[in-house]
């Protein structure tokens, strides 16, 4: 059992989960993820590691409440325990001195990209950070991201910001003005896809952190298979980071949606059984 230290709503629908996991906290690297289960009847789901503290022995993730598992998580509080919390899993993000790197994140990816931004800066890169939020009130962790960013851009459809565009348009504009050596993108599949498309014409290496459905997260089942350059890869052990220009996005979109009807059934059942009864 893994104890929750903190579960806090950052912005509507997006939460921070900090747990006590001293062994893991010593080994976390940017870009890795954990597998967890919110309760004994739950599903095993992956969440990217958004931060860790080796001294305190804690590991954090930022998650978006979208379905049964993440809604269940959103109701847990400090002191509650998770029956499954395993990691750190997956290959760490490549961190080197590349030159100028742009990190593009949205929704949970704003949190998930933070350790990468930090590590890239510490490795001596010039780091541009580009964050997408639907609206002003959905922005979080702006301060910590800015701390490690040479430039900070926001794309949004909210009149609060100057820019009323989706992330690839802003990315294209940055590309016109500056020479980028690499782009790293984390967030929903559509965001990662559009960022990859935006950099494709100029051939700028773009790394994405793929999020297919997973079961074990250790390479045992193949649920997470993705096609990269025509070859099947297991995202949990061969990734989750891949070259965005080599990903078969169509396949990923379809595979992620494969349980759509079951997910709705699961939510309805859970709401009826547990939420409404209380």
């Amino acid at each position, binding site marked *: 059992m893994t104890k929750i230290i903190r579960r806090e709503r950052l912005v509507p629908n997006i939460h921070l989960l900090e747990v006590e996991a001293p062994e893991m906290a010593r080994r976390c690297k940017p870009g890795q993820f954990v597998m967890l289960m919110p309760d004994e*009847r739950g599903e*095993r789901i992956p969440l990217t590691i958004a931060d860790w503290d080796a001294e305190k022995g804690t590991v954090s993730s930022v998650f978006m409440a979208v379905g049964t598992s993440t809604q269940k998580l959103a109701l847990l509080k400090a002191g509650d325990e998770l029956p499954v919390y395993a990691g750190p899993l997956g290959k760490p993000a490549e961190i080197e001195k590349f030159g100028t790197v742009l990190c593009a994140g949205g929704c949970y990816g704003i949190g998930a990209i933070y350790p990468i931004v930090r590590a890239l800066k510490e490795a001596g890169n010039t780091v541009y950070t580009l964050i997408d939020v639907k609206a002003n009130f959905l922005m979080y962790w702006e301060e910590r991201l800015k701390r490690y960013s040479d430039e900070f851009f926001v794309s949004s459809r909210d009149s609060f910001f100057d820019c009323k565009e989706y992330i690839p348009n802003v990315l294209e504009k940055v590309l016109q003005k500056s020479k980028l050596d690499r782009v790293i993108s984390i967030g929903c599949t559509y965001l990662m896809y559009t960022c990859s498309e935006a950099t494709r014409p100029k051939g700028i290496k773009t790394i994405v952190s793929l999020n297919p459905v997973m079961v074990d997260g250790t*390479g045992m*089942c193949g649920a997470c298979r993705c096609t990269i350059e025509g070859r099947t890869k297991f995202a949990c052990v061969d990734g989750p980071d891949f070259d965005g220009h080599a990903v078969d996005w169509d396949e990923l979109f379809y595979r992620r949606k494969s349980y759509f009807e079951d997910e709705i059934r699961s939510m309805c059942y859970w709401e009826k059984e547990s939420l409404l009864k209380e």
Partner: protein
Amino acid sequence: MADKKTELSPELKARQKAGFIEEWRKEMRKAIPVKERMKMPRQKMPEREADERNKDFEEVNLGLKAKEAVIEAKRCLDCANPQCVAGCPVGIDIPTFIKLIEAGKFSESARKLKETNSLPSICGRVCPQETQCEEVCNLKKATGVPVAIGNLERFASDVERMEGDVFIPKIPPSTGHKVAILGAGPAGLTVAGELAKKGHQITVFEALHMAGGVLVYGIPEFRLPKKILDAEIDYLRKLGVEFRMNFVVGMTATLDDLKQEGYEAFFVGTGAGLPNFMRIPGENLIGIYSANEYLTRVNLMRAYDFPKYDTPVFPGHRVAVLGGGNVAMDSVRTAKRLGAELAAIVYRRSRVEMPARIEEVHHAEEEGIEFHFLTTPTRFIGDENHKVKAMECLRMELGEPDSSGRRRPVPIEGSEFIMEVDLVVVSIGNSPNPLIGQTTPELEIGKWGNVEVDWDTMATNMEGVYAGGDIVRGGATVILAMGDARVAAGEMHKYLNGSG
């Protein structure tokens, strides 16, 4: 991969001899003449009706009743030279445990079993007895029908468990030596039990959230109920074994990290968990599972009870399972239980080459499973939502024998045909789990991804690191894994004492 013959140790031989000449055994042998014994019919394992059992996940076999077990035990001739023992990879003293059943001393019989086999109620259920102990039983040579050793093994250990009379051996004072077991499959559990009984301090590190390896995520409840496994794990806990679940060695900590924490000896039992795929077009369509994924969803995550449990699984109306081994049988019988109208095995060779246990094939047939032999898929066809709707297959014929001695299937040109399916389970084998190899650069890995060992000691090239089970053999069997584990445990004990 190299195989090992079980050579009876001189110690075991001596012990058997001593048992053989005990008075009660002599008398029992005298009580019923050999001829009589040979005339007794093999007691049939009671099982549930096919039409009833293929709709749920309750156990298929019901187990022998005491009366039947005693009769079956009488069939055993209590041979002076019991061949059966050499057929058992863990060297169970088979005649003694069987004669104890004949004498009605069921719990004592179970204890006898546990002297050499820490998981008898599991082996009694899943061991391929017909090719192990029962294959070489003298009664088989004499009459064609061996003693039902596996069924008796199951009987004795079930009685012990059900009577709540599980005997916990007295553990010697702690030796202070710390041992790390990597992986809680049958291999790891066996080493844990053996070394705990010697007073060493054992920690089992397991990546998943439940112990058992394939026994918990792969083999379905209708063959091996979870409560049986739970009881065995509980027994190990009582022996003082500590379990660290959700601990992925190589990721949560490496073998070297564990060394730094004071672990002195290691057993790598991480299994063959890497699923093989066909590598044909369309294999990543929705509705195509590896057997590992399919069975894990259903067994470990209990998708059969969705939405009470959160993990879903595609039910499938027309299900094709590719392969002909135990894993394929488990998958196809699972599909039937989840409501498939068509649940079919699609196998590229013919019936005789199927590696699955005969009992499982029989059970599958009774349950309404279809078999398509000499057939292989060449590509999968999807609908507009990328969901599989059919597969194109080729017919095969058998040609010359290949390296495994089985006749090689050769495609018949122009024999393509379409089979409509909405769920496919790829069950063409697993490869050794690569994680430990990748994160322990020093460890010598063979060309199949297996950990290399010295087969006499199960020692790897790293000092104090031993390995066994599917990680060294590729997909094999529970009892071979446990046989390796026993050898390793013996050697590890010597190693610890030497270094202490």
